[in-house]
């Protein structure tokens, strides 16, 4: 009989992950926590901050595709190496010659940990960051998020309570979630001027 004594391992995904594959869960646990740092890094080295969100997506896709065959031993280092490679590729393939703003090749090669030490948000910091994002939502959106997420009302109940159509509740929840996602993954915090443009880019696009 094979017995295996397991001490409790690092915090694992929650029940909602039941819809996600093992690889999805890996990605959520190992890659997404570095999002804040990645976005700050991209904002800093990439000349056009309007493209940061696209870059982030392409980097994520590359990391994910490559993890399909082999999981990197150091996910964080792999994430940033992928970021550097992707930016280099883009610069090479681009027909556009940078005139007034060349990418900062020096900082492309900076070691990740020199850019900014990884910050693991404490529970309280994370809550504060979430609360700030929550408070930044429009009145309607904020009410929907509160009733759905905090009070746990169903979509129908929320619609009745706020006198909205269910479809409106649904779309407000979707909108609110995207803002909360930024807070959760740390990209809403402490980002330079590029952040403003990035978030505009993200939210006004609906």
């Amino acid at each position, binding site marked *: *009989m094979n017995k*295996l004594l397991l*001490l409790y391992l690092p915090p694992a995904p929650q029940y909602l*992950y039941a819809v996600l594959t093992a690889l999805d869960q890996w990605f959520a646990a190992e890659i997404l926590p570095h999002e804040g740092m990645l976005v700050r890094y991209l904002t800093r080295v990439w000349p056009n901050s309007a493209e940061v969100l696209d870059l982030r997506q392409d980097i994520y896709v590359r990391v994910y*595709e490559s993890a399909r065959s082999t999981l990197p031993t150091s996910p964080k280092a792999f994430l940033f190496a992928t970021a550097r490679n992707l930016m280099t590729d883009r610069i090479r393939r681009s027909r556009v010659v940078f005139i007034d703003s060349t990418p900062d090749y020096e900082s492309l090669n900076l070691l990740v940990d020199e850019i900014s030490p990884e910050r693991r948000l404490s529970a309280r910091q994370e809550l504060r960051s979430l609360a700030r994002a929550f408070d930044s939502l429009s009145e309607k959106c904020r009410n929907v998020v*509160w009733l759905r*997420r905090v009070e746990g009302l169903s*979509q129908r109940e929320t619609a009745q309570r706020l006198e909205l159509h269910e479809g409106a509740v649904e779309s407000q*929840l979707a909108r609110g979630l995207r803002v909360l996602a930024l807070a959760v993954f740390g990209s809403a915090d402490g980002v330079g001027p590029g952040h403003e443009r990035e978030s505009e880019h993200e939210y006004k696009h609906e």
Partner: protein
Amino acid sequence: MGSVRATKENPSMNTSTNSAEIEATAASWFAKREGGDWNAADQAQLEAWLDSSTAHRIAFVRIVTAWERSGRLTALGAGVPEGTIPPRDAWGFALSSKVPASRDPRERLQSVAGAAPAAAPSIVPGVRASSRPLFSRHLRAVAALLVAGTAAGAFWYRSMDHAESYRTQIGALTTVPLADGSKVTLNTDSQIHVELSPTMRRVKLDQGEAFFEVSKDGARPFVVEIADQRVIAVGTQFSVRRENNDIRVLVTEGRVWIERRGAADRAAQTQLAAGSEARTSKTAVLIDRPAPAQVEQLLSWRSGYIIFRDTALADAVADFNRYSARKIYIEDPAIAGIRIGGHFRSGDADAFLWLLHSGFPINVEQRSDRIILTKR
């Protein structure tokens, strides 16, 4: 210049300019899925969308994770009456420099009133300073009414939930259908408390043992709570047996997660697949894959039987004692290790005792309140 590059012809760049749209689509999918009217066709469409591009999948993973982690927001609800949406910046830590959080309890009360859509908190700053005391007395009255109103609303919403307790006597065995289509089979001397809400199906196992056949509902996890541990399922079959604060979980179909709230607020989880059994004690989890015969043995109680296979007499007696108020005691350690086997009706200790008496050098002494086993 940025815009020139952003609209460049490179196909990979072309698709990537949609990242904000992809994210919006992922969020919409998620909200729809959480919305309630989710069916198999929706699921198939979502899966097709997820499979059509890695970027889609990642955006969805990101939103699911964000929703999960945003659960921390519920901490903000502590102390807030149900049905009340607190005003901005009511959290005790200053969030923005523009609007300092109010420390004045009166303002907090007003702001609570402002939570109702009708009375926006932004009215308050517009009031002239001189008229304020009077105004705020009015507001307080309005606030009190509104709070009373929302409290009544909260009660109404509460009462839409189903909350029930079920209990079995010693020796009893019963199957309870739940309103969500799940079924719970309760073994002897067991008690559960069931709460079904729109977001969660919550069962407290106060004592004993239960087998759960959980109807599938991905939007509403099925959570069995045992002290500080939780067994979480979406749609599956498993049994949980509680001994003090330790549990034994056996999964026969699907999978479950076992989670313990540790000293830190971070929850620790263990995943358990079909055919596995977990036993927890203090901070450790022992995971085992019992043979099919063993699984049958572990679950035989559901049909009212106890199965022993090469079981020590002491263990067999302990098992029987769960089903009877009149307990069996072994007074002679020399016989405690005798190995026995067989199928018994869990309520029929007499057959068991008769077998012991006739098949082994064991003397059975029947007293009114107990049964004593000694070496013959």
